[in-house]
């Protein structure tokens, strides 16, 4: 299970970096989303992926056993997902506005020269 998640994470990071290096705005956006998801899987991996060991103290014991699924990373991922949802929706609206204004998808056209400053 862990090796599968590691491979998935690597693919997400690689694809994310590749897409961010492109000049198209849509690919940039997809790249950011993929990188964020790669990070989420990384956090998930660090929380001891074990089957059938919930973090519940069994009756008669005072502390948890040696191996248990750590609930904190899951809470962290949940927070990170909610945040990245907000950021992504803002990014989509922003890129749509930019596209409507300059009529191209190419990031290289995003340079108003200094002479046009006020």
């Amino acid at each position: 299970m862990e090796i599968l998640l590691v491979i998935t994470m690597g693919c997400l990071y690689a694809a994310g970096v590749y897409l961010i290096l492109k000049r198209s705005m849509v690919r940039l956006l997809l790249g950011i989303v993929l990188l964020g998801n790669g990070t989420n899987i990384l956090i998930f991996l660090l929380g001891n992926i074990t089957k059938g060991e919930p973090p519940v103290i069994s009756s008669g014991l005072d502390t948890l056993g040696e191996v248990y699924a750590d609930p904190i990373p899951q809470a962290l991922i949940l927070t990170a997902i909610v945040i990245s949802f907000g950021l992504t929706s803002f990014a989509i609206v922003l890129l749509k506005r930019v596209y409507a204004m300059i009529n191209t998808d190419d990031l290289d056209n995003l340079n108003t020269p200094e002479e046009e400053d006020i």
Partner: protein
Amino acid sequence: MINHIVIMPVIVHLFTALVLLAFWQKTDVQRTLSVAGNFIGLGLSLKLFWGVLDGPILTLNAANWESPFGIVFVADQMSTTFVLLTAIVSLAVSIFSATGVSRARILYGYFPIFHFLIMGLNGAFLTGDIFNLYVWFEVIIIASFVLLTIGGRKSQLEGAVKYMTLNILASTFFLTGIAILYGIAGSLNMADLSQKIGLVENRSIVNMTAMFFVIGFGIKSALFPLYFWLPSSYHTPPSAVAAIFGGLLTKVGIYGFLRVFTLIFIPDESIRFLLMGMGIFTILTGSFGAVIKNNLRRIFSYLIVCHLGFVIGGLALFTQLAFTGLVFYLIHDIIIKSNLFLIAGLIRSLRGTMSLEKLGGIYDQYPKISIMIGVVLFSLAGIPPLSGFWPKIYLFDAGFQNSNYLYIGGLIIGSFITLFLMSKIWSEAFWKKPISEDLIVDRFGVSSWQKQTLLVLPIGLLTLTTLFIGFNAEFIIQIADKIAGEMADTTPYVEAVLGN
């Protein structure tokens, strides 16, 4: 321990923002309420500041969860100083915004978002939990995205795309760092981490984790080679927004550096070498970039980058003397950089342009305002006895004690170029005869005296603060020295949080 005052600077801005949302269409009410909220925030920040100056470090365990299990808010001298500076700057900017930001922008929710941003800043300075710090960073960036794009001019949107991409990327790096940190140390509480990270045997994985924080914070605080988003976005929003960005947003990244690299990762030789290299190149590229620019706000944007190099170089020296210098420098820098962008806004309303070529003759027309602006420009350059001079003595001294002559060379070049630029701005914008009188669009002279006061008052307020820092340097040095002591020896911080 429950000290509710610790969280009050956050709560008051949250509350103000929520109340402002109820007055969406009533711009006059929004202006008044925002200034009032900032006054309350300033009062509470002062109370917190004095409380910590005379007393112990205050902590607040959220929902009364014992640390290190719950989220803890910590008010030590460094946090409270930053919170106080934020309160001063946000009060000035909020007064300036009353006339400096157009009605259309206010109708799209400028003031509520502004208060959410200040809330995020205060939260980031006060939290003692690394994941909570990440959450506050996200609150800050989402609010800053809106402030940067509000109004929707073409240049604004272009700047916002770069700003957004790199800031989201920085957050991803920061989050990755936190994830690995949790994996190797099993805690998120910064005081707890400072104890646990020292026990980790595998130092290379600790250093690798530190690299994620260097990149994450490095993008946010615009250091070489990660600063390119800053000069291409900070000249686009309204001047009031640029002032809050220029004064405070990059400083949150610096705060992250100061906190994480004194409390959690004690930098070893290689990381200090890296930070020093970043610092020196930040000074050089920032100052050279500023020289070739011809627009006031573009020059100031590059100067932000340049002067952050002083601070990071000081952190890389890692002695208590250097800490004193860099903290003093930050106190001076936060006030003055916000003031510079407000001044750029004022100059634009005096002349209708911010391009040095088209400016001119301001001194003849407005001598009093010009002298006030002159004081600010020469404080930045560090003419004694103004405020930029004192911290540099400390940084030079710390550089000589470590025999780090490259850093001293960087300081000299950075300071000299700043002085050159300030003289250039002074002679071009204030002394030179304007190219042609017809090009001048003076909106300031024809507006009512109330509007004139609202534009000049915040700049006067920040200038007075700068003068206070310069002429009361002894008091500021005492504070900086106390903060430097906290950075050099983190035991009181750890004990205050963990309570043992």
